[in-house]
């Protein structure tokens, strides 16, 4: 493992160099919150954040993506023929992404980049991006990454991992893309002896601070209908107001809508993040709706993340443990307790309980 040491005072110099080659994104303060933004010439990533309010998924998968343009002017040769829009395929770098959010990208890649179809918009943006992670020395109380496939110092999905140590940052290149970025920034000074031990100690301290966990080892052995028909959904979904906050802030929620918008004689086809919490999500043109009740929509979200995804990909749950939905849900619905309920659910035991009561 080759470790680079970056003096925080020289961080700006390196990032300025990066901006010549990459579109650079980083966490910046926005009122009381942090968000990932494209950094302007004078802007620097602000590492004093715990995590951003919105996940950084929009860097690869914008909330509104222009897909095609069209003309409705009969005088045009290409009238009513959709045209591809040139995409920005220049390299971009995300500086300071947390390991949980980084893991979300390879996770949702299973949806966007399949053997049959490649979602060109997502795949091209993903391939153009270099992910520079920032390890979490102090995780939040709602984090449960250690049981959701990564950890405060997790490396999956990252090209570089940065670790803060007082006035210094340690950088480890994890991929050729990451090596190229460190090279471009001029961050080449090797960290001296003892750095590796320091990182190991910081990681151990961070891991110890993660106090909540989810368990899903039993979920894949359950039948879909067994969990689908479990009695706890009514109770869990009762307080939900279907606001959709959970889906928008989630780094792994990928569902979208496609809409045409016409201005005079021309227009665009675009796609927008959508939410399974909305009744419109599944409403047929006939008026029929397969998920009319809010409890059915709440069940859909958790079954998708914790059961359907598990069955389909056999690669963990569709959740990275960032805790955003737990923190931001206005009615305190908690994916951790639902996951554990699903994992502990035993329809046979449940029947006995009902029978005896």
């Amino acid at each position, binding site marked *: 493992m080759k470790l680079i040491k970056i003096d925080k005072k020289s961080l700006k110099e390196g990032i300025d160099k990066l901006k010549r080659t990459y579109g650079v994104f980083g966490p910046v303060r926005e009122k009381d919150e942090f968000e990932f933004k494209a950094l302007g010439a004078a802007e620097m990533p602000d590492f004093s954040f715990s995590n951003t309010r919105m996940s950084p998924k929009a860097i690869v998968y914008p909330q509104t993506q222009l897909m095609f343009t069209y003309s409705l002017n009969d005088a045009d040769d290409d009238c009513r*023929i959709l045209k591809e829009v040139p995409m920005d395929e220049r390299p971009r770098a995300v500086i300071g992404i947390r390991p949980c959010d980084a893991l979300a990208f390879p996770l949702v890649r299973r949806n966007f980049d399949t053997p049959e179809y*490649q979602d060109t918009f997502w795949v091209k943006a993903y391939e153009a991006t270099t992910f520079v992670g920032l390890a979490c020395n102090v995780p939040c109380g709602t984090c449960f990454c250690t049981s959701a496939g990564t950890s405060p110092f997790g490396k999956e999905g990252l090209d570089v991992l940065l670790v803060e140590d007082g006035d210094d940052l340690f950088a480890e290149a994890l991929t050729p893309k990451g090596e190229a970025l460190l090279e471009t920034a001029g961050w080449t000074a090797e960290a001296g002896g003892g750095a590796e031990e320091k990182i190991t100690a910081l990681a151990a301290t961070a891991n110890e601070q993660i106090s909540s966990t989810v368990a899903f080892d039993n979920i894949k052995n359950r039948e*879909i*209908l067994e969990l689908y028909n479990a009695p706890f959904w009514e109770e869990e979904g009762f307080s939900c107001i279907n606001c959709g906050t959970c889906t928008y802030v989630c780094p792994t929620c990928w*569902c979208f*809508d496609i809409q045409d918008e016409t201005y005079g004689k021309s227009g665009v086809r675009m796609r927008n993040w959508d939410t399974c919490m909305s009744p419109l*999500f599944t409403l047929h043109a006939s008026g029929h709706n397969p998920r009319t009740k809010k409890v059915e929509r709440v069940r859909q979200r958790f*079954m998708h993340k914790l059961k359907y*995804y598990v069955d389909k990909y056999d690669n963990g749950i569709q959740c990275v443990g960032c805790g955003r939905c737990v923190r931001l849900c206005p009615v305190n619905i908690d994916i951790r307790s639902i996951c554990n309920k699903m994992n502990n659910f035993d329809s046979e035991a449940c029947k006995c309980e009902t029978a005896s009561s």
Partner: protein
Amino acid sequence: MQNPYLPYPVRIDKIITETEDKSLKTFKFVFIRPEDEEKFAYRAGQFAELSVPGMGEIPIGIASSPTEKGFVQFTVFKTGKVTSHLHAMREGEIMGIRGPLGHPYPWETLEGKNIVIIGGGFAFTTLRSSIVFMTDPANRSKFKDIHVIYGARSPGMLLYKDELKSWAERDDMHMHITVDGTDDPDWKYHKGFVPTITEKFAPPADADTYAIICGPPIMIKFTQPVLDNLGYSHDNIIMSLENRMKCGIGICGRCNIGKDLVCKDGPVFTLAQLNAMPKEY
């Protein structure tokens, strides 16, 4: 990398009003670039997204058969924003189609078998595709007995009336056309609901007999017990589902029933498969 959301441009070659209430029209499309027709190689049971720039896209079953060359055909019920717009379009206008999408009926399994097609109302489009495909001179010998049970509210609401008549005259298939009711004294086919006609005319169940059912939920609800009584195995009952869709290629996450996406894992499922899935359709 091919953009899977980009439709092939097509020209509306012909529009046929199918039903007396004018709610169903058949659109024949011709590809603007002839090479696109080859790329659009499809099999009976698949669907496509019809794309009207400025309005949006709708998933519609392919009504033409792969044995019919030079065009693709869709029969569309006027019901929402895009279909209403489509119904107001004229021959010669340009739009797009994207596909073929989803799984066809399981033709590898169906070869050498008795086939019973059961359809109701306007859900007869991919069934037409299947009938035209199976009765093509090159394919007829690949299938044993073919029964078709097709019903609509009234004679004027039947789709593909001329073809129904010509199929009824064939001696190598059994047509059972029915309407819920009619005052027409010259009506020479059945009267009665599809489940009743199925009970009377469907062949007995055996391992080599497969039923393909498409129709409104109420028809399916009452036809399934009939097939159960006749002894049809749920593996031998094949159905085609619909759900609201956008991408049509298994990415946008909208049309799922449990872990399966109607667009990519369906729209064709056996009843045995559906029994293990939530009833979210």
